[in-house]
C-alpha cells in the first residue's frame, strides 16, 4: 500500500505538472485581437479574420476574432480592460458605456472621422460618438423596429395586406381587434393581433415600447439627457403607455400568455409583430411557411422613426499597444465596397448611405419599409452612460402597467422620480 501510495502521488504530481503548462501558445504571427459578442452573426464576425489575411500582406498583422457569449460579456470586457495586457485591440460595444462611463476607448483619427461623417445616414450620425467625439464605427443599421404582418391572417380577417393601417389609434387598433380571435370561454385568446414582449429584463421591454412612446411624441429624457420628470411622465407618455397597456388589459389584442413574441408570430398565433430586420432571417429558418410583409411602423401624432437603444459599434482599446495598427485596419475596411460585402454576407443592412440603394438592399423584403422609416424624422436617442439603469427603471413602469400592477400615470411618476435620482447620483 505504501508503494502504491507513492506511485499514486507521483502520477498525480506529474499529471498536474504536465497540465499546468500553459495552453496552446499563440503563434508567432503578429495579430490584432477583435472581441465581439454578436454570436448570432458568425459569418459577419468571420469576415474580419478574412479581411485580416489581406491586411497582413500590407502590415504584417492578422486579425483574430474572438466571439464572446452575450450573457456575461460586460464582466469579461471589464475584467480584461482592468488587467490591460489581455485586453483586445478592437472590441464591439456601446460608445456611451465604454467611452463615456469608462475611459477605455481611443479617439478615432481625424481623417477616418471625416470619412464617416460624410458617409453615414443621418440616423446613424450619433452612433459611435460620445460628447461629439467619434470613437468607433457603427456596425448595425437595421436595428430599428419595423412592422411585420402575416399576410394570410390579414386576408382572412378581411384586411388588405398591401395596405396596412398607418395610424395607431384608431386604425391599427381596429385592425388588431379584427385579427384577434377571442376564446369563447373567456380564457386567453387563441389568436391575437399583436405579439407583445412581456418577458425578460426591463431594458428589453423599454426597447419594445419606445416606438409607441415616440409615436405619441413623448421622450424618456430631456434633450440634454439630464432630466426625466416632465418627460418620462409627460401627458404624451402617459397616453402612449395607456394605449400600450390597454392592448393587453382592455382591448385584449395582445396577451401575456403567449411566450416569446417571435415564436408567437412564427406559430401564426399573432398577426403583427414589431421587430428589427434580423427577424426575417429567423422566420425563413424557423417558420418558413409564414407569409409575411414588412412595413414602416404606424404613426400617431408623429412617426416613430428609426430609433434604437443599442448602438453597437466597433471601438479601439485606449491602452492597446497595437492601436495604431488597429486604426490602420479600420481604415482598410472603411469603404463602401467592404461595408457592402461585410453586411451582405450575413444578410443584414449595410451602414454606408451609398449602399442603401444597391441591388442587394433593393431585393430585401424590408427595402421599402426601411426607406419609409428612414424618411421619417430621427427619433430621440438616449445614449447616456447610465442608459441601462435608466431604461430598467422606465421598463419597470411599462411592465407594471402590462401586468396590471398600477396605473400608467402613477407608475410613470414613480419611474421618473427614480430616473432623476439615478441621473443625480
Amino acid at each position, binding site marked *: 500500500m505504501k508503494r502504491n501510495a507513492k506511485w499514486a502521488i507521483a502520477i498525480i504530481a506529474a499529471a498536474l505538472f504536465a497540465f499546468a503548462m500553459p495552453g496552446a501558445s499563440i503563434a508567432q504571427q503578429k495579430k490584432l485581437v477583435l472581441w465581439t459578442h454578436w454570436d448570432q452573426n458568425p459569418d459577419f464576425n468571420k469576415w474580419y479574420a478574412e479581411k485580416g489575411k489581406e491586411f497582413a500582406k500590407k502590415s504584417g498583422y492578422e486579425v483574430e476574432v474572438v466571439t464572446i457569449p452575450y450573457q456575461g460579456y460586460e464582466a469579461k470586457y471589464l475584467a480584461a480592460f482592468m488587467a490591460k495586457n489581455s485586453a483586445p485591440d478592437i472590441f464591439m460595444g456601446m460608445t456611451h458605456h465604454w467611452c463615456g462611463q*469608462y475611459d477605455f476607448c481611443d479617439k478615432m483619427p481625424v481623417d477616418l472621422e471625416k470619412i464617416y461623417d460624410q458617409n453615414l445616414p443621418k440616423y446613424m450620425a450619433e452612433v459611435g460618438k460620445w460628447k461629439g467625439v467619434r470613437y468607433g464605427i457603427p456596425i448595425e443599421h437595421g436595428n430599428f423596429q419595423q412592422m411585420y404582418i402575416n399576410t394570410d391572417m390579414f386576408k382572412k380577417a378581411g384586411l388588405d395586406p398591401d395596405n396596412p393601417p398607418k395610424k395607431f389609434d384608431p386604425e391599427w387598433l381596429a385592425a388588431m381587434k379584427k385579427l384577434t380571435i377571442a376564446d369563447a370561454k373567456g380564457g386567453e385568446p387563441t389568436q391575437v393581433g399583436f405579439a407583445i414582449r412581456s*418577458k425578460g429584463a426591463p431594458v428589453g421591454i423599454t426597447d419594445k415600447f419606445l416606438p409607441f412612446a415616440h409615436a405619441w411624441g413623448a421622450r424618456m429624457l430631456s434633450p440634454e439627457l439630464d432630466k426625466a420628470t416632465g418627460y418620462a411622465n409627460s401627458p404624451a407618455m402617459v397616453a402612449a403607455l395607456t394605449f400600450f397597456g390597454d392592448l393587453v388589459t382592455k382591448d385584449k389584442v395582445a396577451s*401575456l400568455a403567449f411566450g416569446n413574441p417571435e415564436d408567437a408570430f412564427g406559430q401564426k398565433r399573432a398577426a403583427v409583430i414589431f421587430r428589427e430586420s434580423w427577424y426575417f432571417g429567423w422566420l425563413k429558418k424557423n417558420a418558413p411557411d409564414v407569409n409575411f410583409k414588412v412595413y414602416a411602423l404606424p404613426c400617431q401624432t408623429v412617426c416613430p422613426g428609426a430609433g434604437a437603444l443599442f448602438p453597437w459599434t466597433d471601438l479601439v482599446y485606449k491602452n492597446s499597444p497595437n492601436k495604431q495598427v488597429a486604426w490602420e485596419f479600420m481604415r482598410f475596411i472603411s469603404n463602401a465596397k467592404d461595408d457592402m460585402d461585410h453586411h451582405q454576407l450575413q444578410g443584414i443592412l449595410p451602414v454606408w448611405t451609398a449602399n442603401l440603394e444597391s441591388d442587394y438592399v433593393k431585393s430585401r423584403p424590408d427595402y421599402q419599409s426601411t426607406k419609409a422609416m428612414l424618411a421619417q424624422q430621427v427619433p430621440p436617442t438616449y445614449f447616456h452612460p447610465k442608459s441601462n439603469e435608466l431604461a430598467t427603471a422606465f421598463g419597470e413602469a411599462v411592465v*407594471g402597467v402590462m*401586468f396590471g400592477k398600477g396605473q400608467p400615470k402613477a407608475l410613470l411618476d414613480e419611474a421618473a422620480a427614480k430616473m432623476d435620482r439615478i441621473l443625480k447620483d
Partner: protein
Amino acid sequence: MRQWYRIVFPKNYLDRRKRAGFLFVLPALLFFGSVFLLPLAQSVLYSFHKITPGGAREFVGLRLYEKVLTDPTFWRAVGNTVQLLLLSVPTTVVLALAVALGLNRIASLKWRNLWASMYFLPFATSLVAAALIWQWIYEPVYGFLNYALSFVGIAPQKWLQSLAQVLPSIAAVSVWVRIGFDTMIFLAALQSIPGEYYEAADIDGASAWQRLRYITLPMLNAQIIMVVILELIFNFKIFDQVYATTQGGPAGASQTIIMLLYDTAFKFFRFGDASVMAVFVFVTLMVVTLLQWRLLRRPVEY
C-alpha cells in the same frame, strides 16, 4: 499567541500533533487566503466608496449602505430569494432523503445503480442548459408541461410568465438539478451505517418509523446538516438559471439578490453598491450557517 508560538516551535509530542493538524489544513487555508480573502477584503473596501473602475474613487462612508438597504428593489430581490429558498431547500432535502432511503432498500445492485444514475443525471448538466430546456418545457403555448396537463383537463398555465407561478417554477428546476447530489451523499452515508444497529433494533421489535427516527436520522445528522447548509448557500446565490431564462421577470418577480448584484456591478456600473450587496450576502449566510451549526448539531453516541 503563546499557542501559536508552540505550534511553530513544538516543545513536546502534543505540540507536534497540533502542528501536524494545522499543517494538514494549511493547503486549504492557503487557497482560501489567496483566491478569496483579498478580493473579499477589496469588496468590503469598495462598499465604502463610490467608484467606477477606470474612473474616480470617492470615500462615502456608510452612504451606500444606507442607499442599498433602503432601496425597495433590493428588498424585493431579497424577498424573492428567500421565497425561492423556502420553496426549494426543504423540498430538496426531504425528497433526497426519501429517495436515498428508497434506493437503499432496493436489493438488486443493477436496478439501484440505474435509478441512482437517473436521479443524478441533472447534476451532470450545465445549469444554463438545464434552465433553457426547462424554460421550453414551461412554455405556455408549445411547451410539454401544458401539453401534458391538457390531457387531464387543466387549462394552460403561464408558469414562468406568471407573477405567482414564476418562483415555484424556478424552485422546481432547482430541486430537479440538486436532488441527485444530495441523494448521493445520503445514500453513501446510509450504506456506511453498520448493520448491527438495525439488527439490534429488530431484536427489540422496532417499527420502520422508529428505526428511521432513532437510528437512521441521528446517524445521518452530520450529513443532513451539511446538505442543508450547502443547499441554503447555493440557493441563496442562485443566478445562472434565472439569468438565462426569466432575467428577473416578469416585472421583477424573479429577480434574485445575485442577479441584482450582477446588474448593479456590470450593467449599472455601480461597484460600490454591488459590494454592499456582496457584504450583505456574506454576512447573512455566515450568520445563518452559524445558527444552523449551533442549533442542529446533536452529539451522536456511537
